[in-house]
Structure formats: structure tokens, C-alpha cells
């Protein structure tokens, strides 16, 4: 008889599940999209949580999803990015020069690998960006830009 046995469909892979979650709800409940790409990343790339252990002025590379881009009018052209990975969030400061140099990549990429210099002072950690590289995620999420 036809149809008495349901065909066995392949189970969703983790990446597909993440895609479906983002598509349907905008939320990935069981993990951060960065977790999917972490294994393929250069091991030198530090997680946000890992930055706390590093000394001031260290030159590092950090990867993450861009959640905000801000350009306060009083900051004389400085752009602020907020980078999020599976371990936390990081303030990225981008000088007008660096922004001009990497504008296309920095402005249009959903996720970035940023190289820069750490600034740690009194428990506040931020990264002064030097270069930006686009990080391809299977699924991107929308950042809140220049609101």
C-alpha cells in the first residue's frame, strides 16, 4: 500500500536549525550563531570573555556579530560598534581614519573579524579597531545602525 510508511526525512543540521530559528523568530534559543563558525576560525582569535585576561594595549583579533553601529554627533566622527559573540559583548571604537579605510566592509558586514588594540581601564574593556575583515555567517542578523 502506498503511504503506509512515512519516508525517513533527514534531521535538520545544527546550521539549518539556526537558520530556521532566525527566520521564524529572530532568536536562536540554543546557541549563538558564532558557535557555528567558531571551529573554523583562526585559533588566535580571542573570545570576548577571553579578553579580560589580557593586558592593556594588547593587539588582538576578535570575531563577532555586529549588533550596533553608532556615530554620536559629538564624538567628532568616531564610530562605535558593538560586537557580540557567544561569550559576551565588546565595545569597538573606530577612528574616522580607520572607518574611511574600511567603510564598505565595516558598514555592510553582518559579522566581522576585527583586529585592534585593547584598552582596559578600571574594568572597562574596549577595542580600538585597526582593520576589519568580513566574516561570512550562514545566517546574518540585522544590526541596529546609527539610530
Amino acid at each position, binding site marked *: 500500500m502506498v503511504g503506509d510508511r512515512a519516508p525517513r526525512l533527514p534531521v535538520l543540521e545544527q546550521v539549518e536549525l539556526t537558520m530556521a530559528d532566525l527566520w521564524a523568530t*529572530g532568536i536562536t534559543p540554543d546557541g549563538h550563531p558564532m558557535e557555528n563558525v567558531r571551529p573554523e576560525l583562526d585559533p588566535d582569535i580571542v573570545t570576548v570573555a577571553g579578553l579580560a585576561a589580557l593586558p592593556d594595549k594588547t593587539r588582538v583579533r576578535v570575531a563577532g556579530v555586529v549588533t550596533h553601529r553608532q556615530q554620536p554627533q559629538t564624538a567628532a566622527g568616531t564610530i562605535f560598534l558593538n560586537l557580540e559573540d557567544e561569550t559576551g559583548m565588546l565595545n569597538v571604537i573606530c577612528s574616522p581614519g580607520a572607518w574611511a579605510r574600511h567603510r564598505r566592509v565595516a558598514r555592510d558586514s553582518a559579522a566581522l573579524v576585527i583586529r585592534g588594540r585593547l584598552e582596559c581601564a578600571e*574594568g572597562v574593556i574596549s577595542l580600538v579597531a585597526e582593520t576589519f575583515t568580513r566574516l561570512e555567517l550562514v545566517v546574518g542578523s540585522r544590526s541596529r545602525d546609527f539610530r
Partner: protein
Amino acid sequence: MGWENPPMPWRDLEKRLSGHFPPRGENRAPNGQRLAFGSEPERPGSYRRAPYQPGEIERTDGGVPYAELHAHTNFSFLDGASHPEEMVEEAVRLGLSGLAITDHDGFYGVVRFAEAAARHGLPTVFGSELSLGLTQAQNGVADPEGTHLLVLARDPDGYARLSTAISEAHAAGGEKGRPVHDLGALGAAADGHWLILTGCRKGAVPAALTTGGEEAAARELDRLVALFGRDNVAVELTAHGQPDDDARLDALAMLAKKLRIPAAATCNAHYAAPERRRLATALAAVRARRSLDELAGWLPAAATGHLRSGAEMAARFARHPGAVATAHALGQECAFDLSLIRPRLPDFPVPAGHTAMSWLRELTYRGALERYGPRDNETQRGAYAQIEHELTMIEKLDFPGYFLIVHEIVDFARSRDILCQGRGSAANSAVCYALGITAVDAVFYELLFERFLSPERGEPPDIDIDIESGRREEVIQHVYERYGRMHAAQVANVISYRPRSAVRDMAKALGYSVGAQDAFAKEVHRYSGDTSDTDDMPADVLELAAQVAKFPRHLGIHSGGMVICDRPVVEVVPVEWARMENRTVIQWDKDDCASPLVNLVKFDLLGLGMLSALHGCFDLVREAHGREWTLASMPKEDPEVYDMLGKADSVGVLQVESRAQMATLPRLKPRCFYDLVLEIALIRPGPIQGGSVHPFIRRRAGKEAITYPHPSLENCLKRTLGVPMFQEQLMQMVVDAAGCTATQADRVRRAVGSKRSPERVAELRAELYEGMRKTHGITGETADHIFNLIAAFANFGFAESHSISFALLVYASSWQKLRYPAAFCAALLNAQPMGFYSPQSLVADARRHGVEVLRPDVNLLPRAPAWSPPGRATPNRRPRGGGRRCASVCPASARSVTTSPSGSRPSGSRTVPTPTSPTSRCAPAPGPRTSRRCPPRARSTASAWPAGRRCGRPGRWPRRARTGSPAPWWGTGPRGCRCWSRWS
């Protein structure tokens, strides 16, 4: 007051706060604009319109008096191509004896027009070009259908009648952009108070002339005369240089002669000067939703629709002697001042035997009894004296009605279990506190009432009320019901072209493809319109976009302003339908309402997502734990809350969740409630520049000595360690140092802070110096230093009352985040869109705090949405920017948790808070964090605040215990805290 950073580079501000003042020449804004002392550049992020500043205009006098009776501004949306101010300036330059603004179906631009005209002494005529016979909104139609009727108000009564008629037509149309006028009814409505012009080519008479010849035109004119009276109709002669001008004008002039009615020359101006013609055609293309090429056949052949001088008109209408003089005479007849229509507040219904003032007094003292105890045994010293002082002032300024109206609105919200609280400077008032409008005890904080209400300001008080955003609509509808749709309406938000929309629309008009439009728009900076790094933007797009920037495009709804007045609002300003269901808006924006010319009193009912979230979280906790918390019963001064904030762990918390605030939290290390007040007010530095840190933080960290400019200021600056941070402090400094009254201090604050004339500032400066010398013998450098501090800071300080109001919510949301992270996260998702972070970031943060997040599951959706009040369906909320995303949440019952697909929950934890996004649920993770989940009973009972009013009235803020210690509710704060000393 804004939440934005001051318009000054951080390093400059830091220098000023630290006591180094740049010489005058170096006082510059970030954009290099030179600043006079005490002036500020246009504040970034501020949407308040700067008052009109008239420039020097060279008037030409051609010797022929002429008033323009038919002119459109860019408030004839997508039709006129000049701002009202530009029209006025051009009219003044041309030496016109009056100007009528006749925008389509409304009075949209009249306030701006009247303000500018008043500054130049130009007589104003108010009118409108009514569209008759519209079957639908006309956007997207190349040649709009129907006929036009040009109406000018002869007097303020005529203005009210016209405004009412326009409102009725909009109401009859039942849809935005489609008024339905009835010509017969208009005749009755006019009753001799209007002047009717026959109008442009679309006016009934000229149109009949074109299609049916002179006989048809005569019939139409007869009809107008019959309806409006022979004295109130004039034939309009407009010469736009069309080939048929002479024949048409001759025929019209002949008709006028035959019927013995005057003929007046007009320009039918759509822009001030010929160079705007290109823009005017581009706007026409945008309105018709096609490209200029496609619209070319309908466009005027030349730039003839501009204002003209009397001499030029006389030359143009040489064939029709008297037409120009008639226009001048009619203009003189119809001109009046907009201030003549200024309304008042409605009389508030009060119980028999009471006046508004005595009723307000009664209500205030009832509230005071609850807040401060009986008069002879007040819990806060000086409370009753302060209330009496404020009531006297309110009586003197005749504002009791305003307070009664606000009190009624707040009372209504309370009765419906809707969280709300007043924000802003209203919290400086003990009367507002007693009435339950605000949550801040102004007497306890020694807040200056004069910051809120001052006899010299001559304007009504401004009370903004935050209402939980999900239910604000109920309050708004209540106001409509209470006062009627004729007396209450919402303030419009004039949506203007921003750099990106300007580029997009102009590219569209110029015929670029949709893809190209997108690409161009992306190149432009969203706010500044900076196009310096635009590589491939065509010059014509840039040029037109620059011209159209800031043009009004259409009306939106203001986020919460409602106006109520004594006469029907429609007599003051036309009301029209908004796109949103059941909303009607007036045709003016908030700045128009606030204009001293009209003084339409506005009540701000603002939606605050965080109040929704707080309410939702309490509900979820009750369902999941059976614990009943209210804002009043929450444990106060929980040290772990401050530990959490000190680590910048504040995602989701009101206000301090932003990246900039997060960067200051670890430095400030808040330890008590007042620290949160300071944190909110602290001006946030951008990047860590050359080690410049806010002097307050330096002092607080003990890296800098705490000094005061003068011992007399110690009392007022002590709580901020000698660094002025609040506007109230500036006023107090003036009071303490120069022996002024609080009213004088408010005058100084506003004069030094706003763009007043340098002479005025110099005068006040002399007064201050004199006062300082007399009171304390302060002279020389010290006096300079104090004055400089006041002047430098006048623009930036926060209102302390505002900071305190918000700090209450910061504490409440922090406590919920700490104690019930899962419920808090779920409530935040329910209250979307709100806050700084996307749902994705909120969930990620919750996960990092050990909350388990499940994905949506229809089986777990017992009912949706989570906490809509009974009998009221709220649609699923959609997060901003998400097409089909749905973040509505429902609380998982105990049953649904066990049947959840992911099944295994950490053992030993209670079915806590719960839900998050679509039906998912958060369960606590195992491990040490679990202990944080449920607040130990011991802690909450140990709080100085016995949860005595656990089920207390909703929205009621914590108040001081009436029995036992009269300490404030954060009274359990750590004694070691330095800013505490003020009260201990």
C-alpha cells in the same frame, strides 16, 4: 532636556568641569561653528524646532501696494516647494502689504507662517484651498480630480469656521488624504466670515470657462454668489504666462464686471522664487508616483508660480486696472493676528461648592495625608509648607485645571492597573507627588519647584507621563472619551525629509531604477546627510536632495502628545484622521502647539516599554512562583543589585544598558540608590581620550581632592562631590552664592542656557556679580569661576528630578534581572519593541546567565499573548525590522513545562519564571546560580520595607514608612557611601 550628550567635545567639557575655561575665541562646537558664550549649536538629536531667527532683508518698494492672496507652502505636501518662512521672507523682500497662505485642505503651516510674519511685521491672512469632489486620496494621480475652492478667513471667527469645516470634511471622508466637502454646507458654515476666490484652473469657475464657455462659468459664479453672498466672492485673475492667459483673464474680468463683484490679481504661488521650479516639478513627480519624464506633459512650462512684487503684478495686469489694488484692499480686510485664536484649558468639572483651585487643594491634601502624614505630625519636615507654597503659585498662575486633568488621567490608569509615572521636571513638585502624578518626593530631595513652574515663564507647566507602552492606547482612548473628539486630539508629527528619504525620492523622480535609488540612499549618512564619501551619486540627485531636505512630507502621529482645550479643538486647528485606527490628529506638531502665538496646552502621554516589561515580569513571577511583588514591595537597596551593575551586567535594564553607560558603570561602582541617579546624569565620555575621566569619577575614586568654588556652595554641591551635575544645582548655586530667589535663579538658568542676546547675559552677569559681592563678598577670580561654571553647564545639566524618576525604574528593572532573570527576559521579549538590544541579544545574555531558552512550541501555548487584560485582544507584537518574526510570549504553566519537548530540566530547581519567545520557556540552570533565582525569603523580609502594601495600588511608588524610621526607602543603603552624608 535630552538624553543626548552635550554638543561639545568631551575633552572640552571635561576641562570646563575641571575648572579650566577656554578663552572666548576657542569656544567652538564640534562642527567648528563658533559659539558665543552661553549659546549652543543646534542640539544633535534634538527634535525641537529652533525659534525662527529673522535675517536682514532688504525691502524693495515698487510703489504699488499689493497683497498676495493665493500662495502655497511646502505644507501643501508635495505641491508647494518653499518653507513658510521662505515665503514670508520673499514677501517681505518684495514689499508685499500682506500674505495669505492657502495650503490644501488644512492649516498645516500657519503657525510657522505666523511666527515668521510676526517677526517681520507682515500682515497675515489665513486660508485654505479646499478640494471638492475627491473620490479617493489623490497621491499617485498625475492630474488630481475634483475642483478647488479657495477660502480666506475674514476674521478669527471665520478662521474657526473654516477650521471646523475642514475637520468635518476630513471626518466625513473617513480616510487620510480624502476630505469630503459639501459646497452647500460650506455656504451655511461661512455665514459671511469668509472671502471666496474663484481659484486656479481647477476652481469651479475657470474650469467651467475652459470646458463650457462663458455661460457655464457665469452659472458657477452665480452659484458661489448665491451660497456665500455677493460681498464675499471675488474673481481671481492669475497669469502664469500660459498661451491662453489673455483670453481667459479677459473673460473672467468681464464676468466679474457683469456680476458686479471684484476681480483680484493673484500669483497662485507654489514657491518663493523661480529657482525652486525644478524642485517643484520633482515634488509633483513624487506625488504622482512617476518619473519626471512620464509626468512631463502635465508640468507647467515655465517657472512662473512664484511670488511677485506689486510693481511686477501691475505690469503683468496692465490690461486689468484695479485688479492689483483690489488684491491689496482684500488683503487688508482679511488680515489678522493668529494670536487672536489662542485657546484656554477646559474648565474641569468639580464637585458642587468647589472651584477648580479649591478642589485641587482638597485632592492635594488628601494625597499629602497619605504621603506625608497629618499636617501637625508630618513625616517630612517642611512638606506642608512646600505644598502650600506650590499651591499658591499654581493659583497665582491660574493652572489648577492643568493639574486636575493630569491627575484624572493618572487616576484612570491606576484604576485599570496600568503602570504610569510622571517624568521630567514635574517631579520637582511636591503637589505632583502628593497627587500621585510623580514618584519622587520633591521635599525630601529638596528639589526646586521653580525649575518646574516659574511665574516668569508665562507658559503652562509641562508634565510628561510615562505609561506602560502596551496599554497606553487605553489611556489615550480614555482621554478621547472623557473630553470628546471635538475637544481632544493628538498632536501630529510632521514627517520631514531626512537625507536618505530625500535622496531616494529625488532619485525616483529623476527616473533612476529602484536598485539605484537604494544604492544612492545607502551612501548618505542617515542624519547628518554627509555625502562626502559618496562615490557614484549623480549630481542632479544630490542637488535636488539638498533642496528638499527638511521639507515636510506628510503627517504622522506624535508619540504621545494630546491637546485639550476649552473650545472645540477643531476651531483652533483642523483635525484629521491618522492612518492608525481610531486616531485623529491635529494638523500641527508639538512645536506649533507650544508656540507663544497659540499656546495650545499639550499633555504628553508617552509609552515606556520598560513599564510594560516590569508589569509583565511581576505577572509572570506571580504565575510561576506565587510570589506577589509590586514596585513598592520590592526589597530596597539590595547590595547584589549594585554588585551586578558595578560589573556592567546591565543588558535589558532601563537606560543603563547602553554601551556608553556600561562603560561608566564599572568606574562609578554604584553602591546606593542615589548613585543610580548620578549614573543616569553622568555625561558619558566617548572613547577613553587621553585619560580624561569625568571629574566626578576622579573625585569619587579618591584620585582628586573634593573642593568647592566657594564655601557657600558646599551645601548644594556636596552630593555631587563639588562637581555640578544637575540643573537644580545650578539654580541652587545662584541662590546660595548670590542670594537670589529661586525664580530669579530659573531666569538665569534659562537666559544663560538659551540663545538669548549677549546684552541680556551681560546684564544678568552684572546682577550675579553684585549679588555675590553683597551676600558673601565674593569678587575677582572666585566670582569669575562661579559664573563660568554656571554658564558652561547651563546647557548640559540634567534635571535631577528626571534622573531620580528614571533611577527608580533602573533599580526596579535591575532587581528583576538579578532575581528573576528568566521572567525578566520573557517580559522584555513580550514588551518588544523596546530598549537598546535586539531580542537575539537579550536571549543570548539570558543564556549567559544560566537561563535555558526553548524554541517556540505550539503545545506550550496555553493562551496567547501572555498577559493581555481580559476581554482585550492584543495582536502579536512584531519586533522592529522583523518581517514575520513574532515575539509574543505566554507563560508556561507547570504542566506545559513538564511536557516541553526538551524535557529534561535541571533537577532541584523550581519551575521558575519562565517563558520567552514564542512559547518557549526559560528554566534556571543548575549550579550556584540557582541560588540567585529565588530571592531568599529572609532577604525580602529583612528589608526595611516590610512588604506591607504588597497588593497595594498598582503603579504606586514606594513611599516612606509612616511608622518607625522616617528614612527614605533606600534607607538601608550602606552607611559608608559618601553621597549618603547629605541625609544622615
